[in-house]
């Protein structure tokens, strides 16, 4: 228990620092008000806009903990949006559209998992295939066009709706987090994933079904990517196969790394990845809102600043670097 708290310490500190910076640089960041039955605040916006990456990061945590990686999640998001928008356009019901989109994404996850477990393709290659092909399939479904969703469609509630005073995407991310946390905590799934990521050979000797466990991780990842894709599509009321989820796989992997789960597999922390995802999103929002001497930060700097902060968080987490720094600071005294 203490172990997991120490691992959450660094990402939490980074997040706290970022918020403290905002408190000084752009106090508007902490404004709250109740508008049209929902809480409105930049903080809520961070969670709202960060929901897709949060969902991806949850699934990516399991995949990475099991000793794999999934580069296809952005493309799978695009597939979800394309399938849903296509069906809605052809007079499908909202329920059918959502169910079909999620089913396609589940199949995508299983496809990745089968390529890796049965065909023995390395995870990075197997998912790279779907990363390319998935977006292609999405473009085929949409005929290369952006398919818009009727403005009065109930489908849009996924991205724009409000319940319990919170935006729907935030609620969806919250429910997914709770459900997944319960699943890994109250069944043996979490333990098994840690085992096969930590020592696959020993897991085999202990009689674990290594293949099925790995497959399950990719299947869950596919479903979560589907949810993220639906949120993204409902948010802009259109399926954009070219841009939906573009590069988000990288944000998700970053979130997992920031959250303290080792890329080599083994021990994982869903909460850590969630904090990582929130950190990434609040960084973007911070850069957009920050003002220096009445001038805002040029948008072009966004990515560079983001990279710098991520680098600092990762360096902070490196126990090797901490040890070296400690040696350097001690030397003058000795």
């Amino acid at each position, binding site marked *: *228990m203490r172990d997991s708290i120490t691992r959450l310490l660094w990402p939490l500190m980074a997040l706290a620092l970022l918020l403290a910076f905002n408190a000084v640089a752009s106090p508007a960041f902490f404004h709250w008000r109740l508008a049209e039955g929902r809480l409105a605040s930049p903080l809520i916006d961070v969670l709202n806009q960060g929901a897709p990456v949060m969902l991806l990061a949850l699934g990516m945590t399991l995949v990475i903990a099991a000793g794999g990686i999934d580069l296809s999640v952005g493309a799978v998001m695009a597939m979800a949006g394309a399938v849903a928008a296509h069906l809605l356009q052809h007079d499908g019901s909202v329920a059918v559209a959502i169910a079909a989109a999620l089913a396609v994404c589940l199949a995508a996850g299983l496809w990745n998992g089968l390529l890796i477990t049965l065909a023995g393709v390395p995870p990075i290659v197997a998912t790279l295939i779907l990363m390319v092909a998935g977006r292609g399939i999405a473009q085929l479904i949409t005929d290369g066009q952006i398919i818009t969703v009727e403005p009065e469609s109930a489908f849009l509630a996924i991205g724009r709706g409000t319940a319990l005073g919170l935006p729907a995407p935030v609620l969806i991310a919250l429910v997914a987090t709770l459900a997944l946390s319960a699943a890994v905590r*109250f*069944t*043996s*799934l979490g*333990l*098994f994933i*840690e*085992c096969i990521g*930590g*020592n696959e*050979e*020993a*897991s*085999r*000797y*202990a*009689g*674990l*079904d290594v293949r*099925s*466990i790995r497959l*399950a991780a990719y299947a869950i990842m596919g479903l979560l990517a589907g949810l993220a894709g639906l949120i993204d599509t409902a948010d802009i009321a259109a399926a954009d196969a070219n841009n939906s989820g573009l590069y988000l796989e990288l944000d998700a992997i970053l979130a997992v790394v920031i959250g303290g789960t080792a890329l080599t597999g*083994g*021990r994982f922390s869903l909460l850590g990845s969630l904090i990582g995802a929130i950190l990434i999103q609040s960084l973007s929002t911070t850069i957009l809102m920050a003002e220096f001497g009445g001038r805002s930060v040029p948008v072009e700097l966004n990515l560079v600043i983001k990279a710098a902060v991520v680098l600092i968080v990762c360096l902070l987490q490196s126990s090797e670097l901490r040890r070296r720094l400690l040696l350097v600071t001690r030397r003058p005294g000795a």
Partner: protein
Amino acid sequence: MVHALIEMRGIVKTYPDVRALDGVDFTLERGQIHALVGENGAGKSTLIRILTGAERHDRGTIALDGAMIEPRTPAAAQRLGIATVYQEVNLIPDLSVAENILLGREPRSRLGWIRWGAMRERACEVLTDMGLSVDVAQSLRSCSIAVQQMIAVARAVDQQARVLVLDEPTSSLDAGETAQLFALMRRLRDRGLGIIFITHFLEQVYEVSDRVTVLRGGRCAGSYSTGDVSRLALVSAMLGKPVNEAARAGSAETPPSPAPLHRECLRAGGVFRRHAVQPFNLSLCAGEVLGLAGLLGSGRSEIVRLLFGIDQRDGGDLAINGRAIGRHSPRRAIRAGVALTPEDRRSAGLIAHLSVRENMMLALLGARGWACRLPLREQRMIAERFVRSLSIATPDLERPVAQLSGGNQQKVILARWLLMEPTILMLDEPTRGIDIGAKEQIESLIAELRAKGMAIIFISGELEEVVRVSRRVMVLRDRAVVGELTAAAISTAAVMQAIAQPPAEGDHA
């Protein structure tokens, strides 16, 4: 006076917790194939690492051709003419044969470009000179392991090596490939090279070496001219038992095995796996302890790996608790009531970062499937019970298992399987590297489980232990079962005798 090629005198090497070498002498002559044998932890690899510059010795001297040397790195040793070819060939599989032979010494034009034609010619010359005909343009990966090994040797020879160290070169070769390699070794010997040949195969010592040195527990346990030493004397030196003791028991005949006491729970007929173990028959009854004895690499572990389904067998019939097993897997084995504590705790037994409790519950939870929920309270109760009954020393159940001592880690793995209540328990070196106290506990536990009717297969490199614990002993040599001892006929001497027996015609594949 003519100096020996290599003279190592009084070599001492101490690691923080163990004296690996304790005053070892070793002499290699020109034109000699010198076999170096010994059991696990005898100090063979430490001695070689010191000679090849991978490790520094604490005391002692090394002379090459009469001149003192002190190679500090493998590269330095190589410049002195001492080359090593490891079991896993350390070449680059994706480069061509020619590139591998001449890597770092490529013929170049004046502009510094590699002259590919000259390179292929040169590589061809080197290989032909050694009696090998290999297409030097093909990638190394496409060659068999034997050829790869010979190419590694060729590279060493081309670098003006005078001393060649071959570290278990034959462990993944079949009989034909081994013969090929031996022919090459003899050819190089006749040219005056000194060859140190490390092997686990007794037969190969006799087949190819001129001299054999036995290490045991970090000391030299004997050095003989191969033609003058009997197999029995060699085995005695390796295991540290006097020859006369072994000779006395030599005449003891194996009595006919008594009728099975209980129900037979494991039967293997002609089970084998290529490159691992030759066809063997095995029958195991409830309430019986079957010991597997043999030198390191004799096929002991390979047998239990086949029975547990880690490796697939290439042929033969297997029945567990009366049910025929087709395609095997650890999950099937476990479902059938088999448990295995593997030889290598760290890589095949423990999940190091998980807690004592999690490591214990793993097999049970695995058998029940991921969807099953076993409340933490219940898990703790079970784990607690085994911590007490096996007296596992751990501050608490949630401690990462990596923090426990070797003996306690072994008990955690034992607990993992005991709580499954298996009918067949296979223990591969359960007492290796653990303290005396834990050793005794494990031995008495085996007796207790046997009395309760469990069938046990017990493997240990320590002969006394196998003899003490087992009711029946199968003896292995060079990956084949070569004998079986029962009840009163079991003694360390008789086991040694069986290991040392010269093979019958056509026995050695």
